[in-house]
């Protein structure tokens, strides 16, 4: 990964589904070292906004730009972004370790994966099929998959979902340890996670 600082800007973002508008006129920006939380009631478009920021969906109006030195092409965004959310499901038929092997891009991901598995307490379950995981374990695996390639931008949609208090503490301490070198964007309604981030954007 390049070491140049990243910055993410969104201008005048709007999304319509069919004919009903979800949100409009959202402007935001974040640079490396900054963190952002997106809050709002259910159905206010948090997940959609996250997807738009990650380049997975297109906004109806406005545009998003990810810059590191020079502007990065949209098709390449996902190799710079660690994205996870309720709809990003690992493969049930594969074990935790196999899912990690599938998602791992750089060569040193193996070591990182081992460390992350230990950190998040999944070490003993690495060779179990994901369909035998509990929902909390699955959420931990999803977080590992997002952190795996050490992306400079982290976009976490409801990262605390299904986690027990130990899991939440692990997540928070991990985010605290990397916040200096990354852009972190979290969509959440949990006040604790909201406090973790520098700024808050309210939807709805």
């Amino acid at each position, binding site marked *: 990964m390049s070491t140049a600082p990243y910055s993410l800007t969104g201008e005048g973002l709007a999304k319509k589904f069919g*004919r*009903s508008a979800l949100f409009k006129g959202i402007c935001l920006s974040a640079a490396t070292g900054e963190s952002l939380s997106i809050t709002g009631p259910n159905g206010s478009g948090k997940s959609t906004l996250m997807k738009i920021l990650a380049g997975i969906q297109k906004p109806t109006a406005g545009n998003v730009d990810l810059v590191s030195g020079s502007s990065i092409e949209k098709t390449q965004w996902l190799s710079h972004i660690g994205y996870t959310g309720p709809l990003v499901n690992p493969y049930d038929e594969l074990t935790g370790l196999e899912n990690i092997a599938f998602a791992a891009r750089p060569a040193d991901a193996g070591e990182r994966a081992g460390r992350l598995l230990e950190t998040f307490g999944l070490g003993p379950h690495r060779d179990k099929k994901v369909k035998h995981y509990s929902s909390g374990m699955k959420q931990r695996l999803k977080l590992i998959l997002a952190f795996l390639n050490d992306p400079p931008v982290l976009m976490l949609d409801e990262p605390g979902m299904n986690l027990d208090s130990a899991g939440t503490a692990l997540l928070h301490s991990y985010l605290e340890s990397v916040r200096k070198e990354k852009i972190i964007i979290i969509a959440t309604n949990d006040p604790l996670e909201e406090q973790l981030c520098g700024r808050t954007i309210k939807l709805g």
Partner: protein
Amino acid sequence: MKAISAAVKSVYILMPAAIVMAFLWAPPAQVLGDSSRIMYFHVPIAWVSILAFIVSGIASILFLADRKGSFARLDGIAYNSAEIGLVFTVLTVITGSIWARISWGVFWNWDPRETSIVIILLIYIAYFSIQGAMAHNDNRGRIGSAYLILAMITLPFFAFLVPRIYPSLHPDPIINADRTIFLDDRMRSTLAVAIVSFTVFYCNILHIMNRMMKLQNHIEENRHEAD
């Protein structure tokens, strides 16, 4: 917009002219007699169904190529054109098989032209089933367009390559029975007038359907604003 509206109105004059020419002015063909007059309807209808197919294919290509969305509702135009095309394809099959019954004695015998029109029909049916399966899906326009493009690309393989590689599959004498009829000048010009008027007819329907689609969208948007 105004110019198109005016131009397509010429169909109100062209079509009666084509009908009268087809029945009164054009002489009966030497071999087929008066039954050849169905040609002035069958050929233009077949032409319109292919035209509609090509138009919807081109609209689909433009729709996918135009990522900025500067042309609105190209996928809707492709859909409307395909709808007209489906009707005309069915008509082509019906008129064609009536004609085949009169001149060859059978309703159907899979010559290359019959084969290709049936394939167009199948493609349209497939297109409408995939559109129907995605009634309220945001991907609808793009997937339907991609399918139409893919289908349009397979078509030349039937129309040109197959008869050439397998000449034995398609008995040439049968198709030549009507292809080699001598067309005199009056017949030819009648056919030309009929083709032009059916093309304008197609443009007229497409134009009206597109405007109706626009109005429908407009009404639905306004209804939501009122909420």
